[in-house]
């Protein structure tokens, strides 16, 4: 049974008294749980429900509504690549994604088999003048492509004691994701109208495969 550490519990108590209702502190309490355990799983949700005196169903609704919370099916290092129009212009998003794919062998909506890295497309991260924008967990990067991104990934790999070669022959695992990540098929080809590059993806609207969360019911 997981519990919050005493410092975070104190912080949670402070939130609960500062906010007008206990329920309203839920967003921040969930952040504490994310910090404590690295992600929000069922037990974490139950702790938040206890603290904020709401039902577990409500907490589950919150966690699945807000896409920025880190869930168990995300990798330890979670790459979020902005794919909205401003970043996707000139193929910036694609460049960032292909750099991640080249180094880690994962595309959007996928994670490595060892669960260390995951990659997803997200919507606007509000730094549109310096595309592409990439977030890795709580780190925010602008103009993150090419050598800058590759160098960063190399650094991460080194800190994990891995190398890009480790992921060469490994197939990626699909994350369970409904709203959490965007459909895989998207490829923005804004460069020119003639003979634009297109991916021939499978249809994006199939129900999720390889669910890592327990099926309900």
């Amino acid at each position, binding site marked *: 049974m997981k519990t919050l550490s005493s410092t975070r519990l104190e912080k949670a108590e402070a939130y609960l008294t500062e906010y007008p209702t206990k329920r309203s502190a839920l967003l921040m309490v969930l952040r504490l749980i994310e910090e404590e355990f690295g992600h929000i799983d069922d037990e974490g949700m139950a702790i938040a429900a206890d603290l904020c005196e709401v039902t577990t169903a409500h907490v589950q609704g919150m966690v699945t509504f807000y896409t920025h919370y880190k869930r168990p099916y995300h990798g330890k290092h979670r790459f979020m690549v902005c794919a909205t129009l401003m970043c996707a212009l000139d193929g910036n998003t694609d460049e960032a994604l292909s750099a991640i794919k080249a180094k880690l062998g994962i595309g959007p909506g996928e994670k490595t088999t060892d669960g260390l890295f995951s990659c997803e497309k997200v919507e606007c991260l509000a730094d549109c003048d310096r595309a592409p924008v990439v977030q890795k967990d709580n780190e925010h990067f602008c103009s993150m492509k090419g050598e800058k991104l590759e160098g960063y990934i190399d650094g991460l790999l080194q800190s994990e004691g891995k190398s890009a070669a480790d992921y060469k022959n490994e197939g990626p695992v699909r994350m369970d994701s409904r*709203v959490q990540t965007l459909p895989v098929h998207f490829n923005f080809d804004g460069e020119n109208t003639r003979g634009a590059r297109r991916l021939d993806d499978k249809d994006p*609207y199939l129900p999720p495969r390889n669910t890592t969360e327990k099926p309900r019911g």
Partner: protein
Amino acid sequence: MSDVKTVNIKVDDKPMTVPADWTVIRACQTNGVEVPHYCYHPDLSIAGNCRICMVMIKGMPRPVVACAQPVSEGMEVTTTGQEVEEARKSVMEFMLINHPLDCPECDQAGECRLQNYSYEYGRDHGRFHEEKVVKSKATMGPNVKYWGSRCIVCTRCVRFSDEVSGTGELGVIYRGDKSEIALFPGKELDNPLSMNNADICPVGALVSSDFLYQTRVWNLTSKDSLCPDCSVGCNTRVDSDKKGYIKRIVPRRNDAVNKEWMCDYGRLSFPYVYENRLGRPLVDGKATGWKEARKAALDLLGGTPNAAALISAWNTNETLAALKSLLANHFPEIRISGYANPGRADEVFPGFTISGDKNPNRAGLRQILGIEDAEASLAQLAEEKSKLGTLLLVHGIPQFEMSEALKAVLDRSENVILLDFAESGLTRYGNVAVAFPTLTHYEKNGTYINRKGLSQSFRSVVEPFGYGRDESEILQEMHREMERSVKA
């Protein structure tokens, strides 16, 4: 009503006077103007998310939702017209694009609002040729199943579980067109009000497991009834199939009693109607005719010393009165005692209370026979030492667990005249001299007084199963025979 502030509004040129805190849809519904709706429910908070209850209000540029629009003095509402129709048509189309349209295998077909409103506002062909969103299917709990893809996310069930049952098991998860209703992992929708969720679901997303695939609803005959299972006296509608078998029991709106809710115990109690029914009248264990049985019973009542009568709180006012008048006129020395189905504590929910008193007519026992406390009355009879020559026992309680006190009374009775509808521990007790088969609640007419003192009458909803007769009829027939014998 006089101290409630009212406003005058006009709906389709029909003037109405309604309380000032009402919404347009409530004013319309109360005054017989139909406004289509999915998410609105008079006993739940307002969500305003289905967007089909669009009406035009004079002075507003475009249609507004009637469920969230408070009435105001001089408001002029139009529920028809091109703009309203167009708005409803477009909402209807959006409702159906991701709906699986699996009506042939959907339990809700025939009483589905999507079907009803589609008939009025739907298009004759679909324009949506893309892949539909597929959502999960789940067994929510012992009594409710969930088909996600049919769900229109009106959140009625979520609001019900938050506001009325207060159990809060249900929530909406994900967002956008992937929104669906879900339980927290490891929990289930297992509360005594869970089947109301299936009732209030306007589509076939939440359905009752008990009724699932039993029959199509257009083969059902619906009749109004009452629920006899506790002293609340919920108003119900009993649906029976073409063969006359009860298929389901659903609540019927009565704001003074049960609003539009009822408990799962009451809904699922009806199978006893078809189990172990007593066939013919029995005298000393042998089947006989009604006349012989009545004669035997009357002989016992008049011919044995120290007879007593015992009647349960499950009997109608009519039966209580018939017993009272039979004994008062012809056997004045026989004392009437009462007894009741053992109760338990009330189950209280924020919006509904299930009574712990599992008898429909304890108040009738009090008002007609003057038995203030049925348990004390039985206990008193049980404590007496002398043998009872005959015990007239009017039972009629389904799934009755024999109590020690009743056992004691039976033990000191030499002969028992039993009125009951099923073979049970009582019929097998040994000293039953005469047994009359009677009718269950659903097969007879009568009146109960609920715990608030409200007298409610009901009529039979199905043909009697077997050869039983109403208790009051049997007692009245005995009374008539006594009258005849006195005259002769």
